[in-house]
């Protein structure tokens, strides 16, 4: 059977065996959390608390009135120790609230569990999702309520749940689908209702047969179809997923919304379930802690704001001598950390620690026009050329050769035999264009 997929792409070493059969464990309650006031794409929140305030678990501590934003909540109950700019896992520093815990835990499971979707209106659903601070949990952290509120003139006819998890090492979505398929499905249905879509698809790569089975079991006889997709990176990239599942190509600068479809991640669906059923805001999430530099790789349910160091210590600590690279996310799209004090945020799908040979070399060789980068680019660019144009700030040419089409999946850098940092140079070009167009 020909599995659905997109053109080009790569087959990296997935290394999912380290954690894919490990049940999600609950992490221990952190004694201190650092909650950044911006964990999403959009406007940063303003703090609603001040130093010395007592906060409850799940209490909203950051908010703003802009549409494209998501409020943030305290993930433990305790006292606000400080509000200051602190290291942020996506780079730089962000205004963050430090909360010292009092050791108590709130029981969210006692809420209205018989709640049926039929009894809630579209607007209520969107509002609950917004108030719960839910963002896309695949990594991009785009506010979910914005995705669920397409402009009236856009006809949305398809909803796709992204269960690809094409990033090497990560298995958090995989475990959620295997362990909580009903809840994931419920969250998906809630999102479909919030937009008013009838047709739903769940795209899962074929390397997760147990997840496919679990979701097929719970979707049997419904209008939601499970679609097995070829295991290939970046299958989980929004545009690639839309192409694979419903064969629509989202053009440059457009959103899946423009092609009549909305895509959301499995982790997001689970968060929506908890938010709607238990009125529980997004204060914890499942992350995969893996990589050859982690002693005991695990799938952990971690409270937002827990430091990377705390999480790694619960996984036996960092293994081995020499250089380490600690990533917020997986090795293909993750962000390297400068400090282990950085907190787990809503968009942290995993923590990957690479050591030794897995770390890429610094040196690169001349391009030998082997055309590997052209052959793997999922958006049909010529990365070897764009890399040079970006590096040399030849911005007009960079634009003409499609630099802004790049989805930053990193296939080109991955495949380059000369180890040229192509994606890095393309990013340089993109940043320079953004700077120029701002002025």
């Amino acid at each position, binding site marked *: 059977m020909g599995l659905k997929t997109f053109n080009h792409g790569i087959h990296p070493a997935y290394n999912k065996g380290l954690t894919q059969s490990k049940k999600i464990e609950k992490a221990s309650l952190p004694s201190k959390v650092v909650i950044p006031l911006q964990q999403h794409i959009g406007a940063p929140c303003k703090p609603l608390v001040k130093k010395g305030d007592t906060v409850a678990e799940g209490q909203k501590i950051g908010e703003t009135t802009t549409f494209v934003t998501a409020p943030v909540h305290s993930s433990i109950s305790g006292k606000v120790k400080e509000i200051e700019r602190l290291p942020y896992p996506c780079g730089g520093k962000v205004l963050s609230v430090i909360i010292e815990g009092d050791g108590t835990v709130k029981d969210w499971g006692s809420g209205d569990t018989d709640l049926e979707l039929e009894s809630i209106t579209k607007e209520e659903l969107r509002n609950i999702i917004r108030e719960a601070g839910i963002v896309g949990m695949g990594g991009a952290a785009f506010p979910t309520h914005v995705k669920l509120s397409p402009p009236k003139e856009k006809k949305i006819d398809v909803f796709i749940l992204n269960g690809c998890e094409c990033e090497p090492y990560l298995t958090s979505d995989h475990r959620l689908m295997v362990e909580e398929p009903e809840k994931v499905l419920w969250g998906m249905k809630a999102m479909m209702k919030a937009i008013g879509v009838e047709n739903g698809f769940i795209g899962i790569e074929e390397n997760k047969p147990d997840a496919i089975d679990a979701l097929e079991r719970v979707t049997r006889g419904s209008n939601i179809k499970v679609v097995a997709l070829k295991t290939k990176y970046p299958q989980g990239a929004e545009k690639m997923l839309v192409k694979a599942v419903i064969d629509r190509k989202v053009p440059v600068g457009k959103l899946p919304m423009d092609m009549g479809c909305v895509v959301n991640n499995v982790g997001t669906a689970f968060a929506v379930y908890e938010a709607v059923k238990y009125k529980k805001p997004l204060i914890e999430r499942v992350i995969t802690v893996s990589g050859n530099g982690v002693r005991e790789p695990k799938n952990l349910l971690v409270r937002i704001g827990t430091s990377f160091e705390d999480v790694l210590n619960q996984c036996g600590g960092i293994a081995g001598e020499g250089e380490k690279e600690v990533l917020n996310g997986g090795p293909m799209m993750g962000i390297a950390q400068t400090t282990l004090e950085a907190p787990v945020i809503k968009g942290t799908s995993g923590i990957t620690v690479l050591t030794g040979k897995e770390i*890429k070399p610094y040196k690169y060789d001349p391009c030998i026009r082997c055309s590997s980068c052209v052959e793997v680019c999922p*958006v049909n660019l010529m990365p070897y050329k764009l890399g040079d144009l970006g590096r040399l700030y030849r911005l007009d040419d960079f634009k003409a050769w499609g630099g802004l089409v790049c989805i930053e999946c990193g296939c080109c850098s991955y495949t380059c035999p000369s180890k040229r940092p192509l*994606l890095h140079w393309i*990013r340089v070009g993109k940043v320079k264009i953004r700077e120029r167009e701002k002025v």
Partner: protein
Amino acid sequence: MEEKTQLEKLVVSSSPHFLRDENIPKIMHAVILALLPAMAASVYFFGFRALMLIIVSGVSCLITEYACQKIRKKPVTIRDGSAAITGILMALTLPPSFPYYGAVLGSIFAVGVGKQLFGGIGYNIFNPALLGRVFLQATYPVMITTWSEPLSKATKAGVDAVSAATPLALMKFEGKWTSHLDLFFGNTPGSIGETSALAILMGGLYLRYRGYINWKMPLGYLGSMAFLGGIFYLINPSKYPDPLFHILAGGAMLGAWFMVTDMVTSPVTPLGQWIFVICAGALAVIIRLFGGLPEGVMYSILLMNAFVPLLNKHTRPRFFGEGIKVE
């Protein structure tokens, strides 16, 4: 204190953070491995002299590369195998009786002018091995067209004494055909490494198996030769050779599997690659049938090498979603 030591050991780079286990030496060494059958065939058919030609050319190329990189104050990369390939490939295109000093000169030109003058690996426009060959063709036009029979057909007189015509020359100037079987196994006069289609094919298929060449390059080139050659064959079978003869004779096989597929000097876009191989194949046939020389593979590839930057520029693939209208 402990935290500090940990911080010092954190590597920070931009994504992706792990890369494919692939590098230039690995590719080049695979190509050298793939050339082994052709080298073995050359020694089998033309004896010790063939081996010496390969060694002399290979070593001269390595020395030239080393000297150029020293003069340019660049890191010495002779271990990556690319200069050795140039030497081997050039030697394989030489007649068995070609003088060693000629091979040395050709190697110096191939690597010194053909590659290092352009900036070294990755920057050359023309295939260095072919450039070396073309230099020798211009410098020693007689010696490079003096052929001898393979050992199996040569009499007691020895290799050097028996001069013979290549299958292409026989076809062109005397209207005689060589049997396909001899061409396939390589039992004909010709350049030491070009005669045996079988040996070259083995190496080529190995490269394909390792994923270093794209099917469309060799097959497009040979297909284009066979197609155009076939048209002329159908027009006048007594005057023009059949398509199979075209792809088995002369340098077609070596060119198709090892020179058209040279990464640096071939286009990177899918359409560009098609245009490149089809035009090169057609040019080779046209030169063979209507040019002054019996063989056209070398010039066909070099000529198309010159078009590569142009092809890359004008055959950009359509971006994902390009041209799709959204209301």
